[in-house]
């Protein structure tokens, strides 16, 4: 593996809430190399979102160290190292779909032509061409989620953090976007952190699958995928694919029994 882009060691995070402390992450150590596609899978509430937010500098760990591109997560955030797709679409209702995708481009100072060009390109990528002038509330939940993916892709950050981006989509669209995402990843060499609840999705997309378990959230297994980089959809019927999926399932089960 080449030098890590994201490097977490012995990360701890405890939320102080009114009902007492919530131990969301415990002793999480993980290295993610440049150009890796890492999936996080685990039961609800095991800290997947929290870990992603720590990487993005949106949450402050209470223990351990975390470096991104050799910087603190906060400094990396300020240098605009990430595109982040949140678990909910969160489009601004006063902006059109096109305007929402343009938002990061405006903030980062892209030229007008460049903005228009990128909005058009990313909308096509997520199959929303023709919806540029619509407002978010005029679109279905799945379409809004796709628009939020387009928004994160528009500005070409080196690191893409995606929190259940395809959770609200039907199987067919999901398959298509999985393929598109793999192509984009292959073409651009981005480093991707991807949260999902779907075992097949995790196995299909990832070079590395991180299995987590709850209370407190920790990593129980890290599986390096042996699948080739080139992945047609029907690779999901291969014996190798099924073997990896089994190992992920076993890891999830073990986590449940411990907890």
């Amino acid at each position, binding site marked *: 593996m080449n030098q890590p882009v994201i490097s977490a060691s012995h990360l701890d995070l405890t939320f102080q809430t009114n009902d007492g402390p919530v131990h969301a992450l415990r002793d999480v150590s993980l290295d993610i190399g440049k150009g890796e596609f890492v999936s996080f899978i685990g039961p609800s509430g095991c800290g997947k979102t929290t870990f992603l937010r720590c990487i993005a500098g949106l949450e402050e760990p209470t223990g351990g160290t975390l470096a991104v591109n050799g910087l603190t997560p906060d400094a990396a*955030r300020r*240098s605009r190292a990430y595109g*982040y797709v949140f678990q909910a679409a969160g489009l601004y209702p*006063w902006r059109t779909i096109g305007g929402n995708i343009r938002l*990061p481009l405006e*903030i980062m100072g892209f030229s007008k032509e460049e903005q228009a060009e990128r909005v058009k390109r990313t909308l096509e990528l997520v199959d929303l061409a023709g919806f540029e002038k619509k407002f978010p509330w005029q679109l279905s939940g799945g379409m809004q989620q796709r628009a939020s993916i387009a928004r994160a892709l528009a500005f070409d950050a080196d690191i893409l953090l995606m929190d259940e981006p395809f959770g609200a989509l039907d199987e067919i669209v999901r398959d298509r976007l999985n393929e598109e995402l793999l192509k984009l990843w292959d073409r651009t060499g981005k480093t991707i952190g991807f949260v999902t609840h779907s075992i097949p999705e995790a196995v299909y997309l990832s070079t590395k699958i991180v299995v987590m378990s709850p209370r407190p959230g920790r990593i129980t297994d890290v599986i390096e995928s042996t699948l080739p980089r080139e992945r047609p959809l029907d690779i999901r019927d291969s014996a190798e694919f099924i073997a990896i999926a089994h190992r992920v399932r076993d890891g999830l089960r073990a986590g449940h029994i411990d907890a």
Partner: protein
Amino acid sequence: MILVFAAVAVWIGAWAFNGWLANGRFSDLASVRLAVPLIFGATVIVVWELIVRGLQVPPVILPPPSTIVGAFFGNFGVLWPDFVQTFAKGALGGYVIGCGSALLTAILVDRYDFLRRGLLPVGNFMAALPIVGTAPILVMWFGFDWQSKAAVVVVMVFFPMLVNTVAGLRDTSAMQRDLMRTYGASYWQTLFKLRFPAALPFIFNGLKIATTLALIGAIVAEFFGSPTRGLGFRISTSVGTLALDMVWAVIVVAALTGTAFYGAVAWLERRMTFWHPSQRK
């Protein structure tokens, strides 16, 4: 007496007609929705006219609407400068200065927490001062002309506008703010691209409340000294000479102005916050 019976008849007839319109099968038409309140208003005016004439109510107590309309058009040459003095200069000037400075203060208050704790109580205190107490003082300070009326208006509209804007600037979800953070957006970028648009429904709420306050403030302040024109001045001098038809004509001017002012702000609100759930069609 016949006129009184006629009034009762008109009332019952119009009531029945309006009831039929409002509950009938045309009730969803835009024209019908507009007609119902208009018919109601017209009925009130006709009944008022008939009863005042039928019972021979002295004009000092209540003049008939026809006399008021006569006074309105007959004194148009007087009422127009009054309107310009009170509304265009006093009320509007104070409205713009008061709402504008409240908006800027709100941005500061929002940014620096010590200002929030320091300034909001002061604003609250200012809003609690009775206008009949502050107006004479402000007239002393700023003279008889419209400047002192604008000052009274500023004092009246500042606080409601400030409170609404401060609340609006805080009305963003954690996720909306996190999104800005992932872009490494600066304070000003976040302010203009997220918090200000999100605050617009609140800001317009403040602007609408302030329209009514501005007109009241500008009129009442003229009771404590003004040049020989202005709606408040006109009311106080006309009351002195028992020219009640003139008083009523001024009330008509103030009512029309206030309604139009409010309507204009509400129209702007619909244009600018069309995306808000309360405005979506």
